[in-house]
């Protein structure tokens, strides 16, 4: 796609979309967002990349095969669920660690739930890209 305008726009938008997707991912537990939405937005960034600059460039920018990203995401989500076993809890029981916890404020939360959401993000991201890239390469 030899549109200069689109290519240049993509250069900014792609990064913006990925950044925005991470933002949606992190805040998802408290505000609209989360792994699905984040992953969908993140993938649109690279979809745009692929539409504007071709899949070869998009794949090169991504470095890892999208299928592997997706499958690794599944693995991460699974591990987040299995992690509960270490604490003697049932599968997918959230494990929380609050950094800087004070009586008024819980501080910065780190949790297997967030890890799970990251896994979801990667799955959605990788899956959509593997479909779109493969499809793109067919035409």
């Amino acid at each position, binding site marked *: 796609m030899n*549109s200069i*305008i*689109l290519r240049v*726009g993509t250069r*900014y*938008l792609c990064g913006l979309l990925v950044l925005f997707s991470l933002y949606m991912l992190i805040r998802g537990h408290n505000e609209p967002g989360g792994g699905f939405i984040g992953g969908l937005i993140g993938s649109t960034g690279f979809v745009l990349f692929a539409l504007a600059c071709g899949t070869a460039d998009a794949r090169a920018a991504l470095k890892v095969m999208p299928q592997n990203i997706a499958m690794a995401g599944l693995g991460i989500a699974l591990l987040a669920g299995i992690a509960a076993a270490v604490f003697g809890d049932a599968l997918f029981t959230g494990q929380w660690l609050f950094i800087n916890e004070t009586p008024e404020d819980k501080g910065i939360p780190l949790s297997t739930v967030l890890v799970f959401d990251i896994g979801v993000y990667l799955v959605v991201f990788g899956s959509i890209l593997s479909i779109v890239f493969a499809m793109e390469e067919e035409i």
Partner: protein
Amino acid sequence: MIDLAAAILVFLGAAMTVAAGVGVIRLPDVFTRMHAATKVGTLGSGLVMAGAALHFAEPGIIVRCVLIVFFLLLTAPIGAHMIGRASLRLGINPWTPRQKQDSKPDS
């Protein structure tokens, strides 16, 4: 006072949306319709967002509204450019008042 300003902005924005719609219907060819859709529409949404920003008047929300408008301003012209380019390549010539132009239907 702020509420009134917000209401006016919102109303104008919504009206712009209708105007864009009317433009898309009434204007004679795809290029002119694009003018209406991309710009009048964007302006409309922008005004609504401005109204919302005024209405909430919280920094977080204002930033969000600004971002929305910014994103719209960033993406809408790119989309319009793509449509326009495609129209030209499809062989659609701009409508001119002098000669009546046949629009080719799509596939």
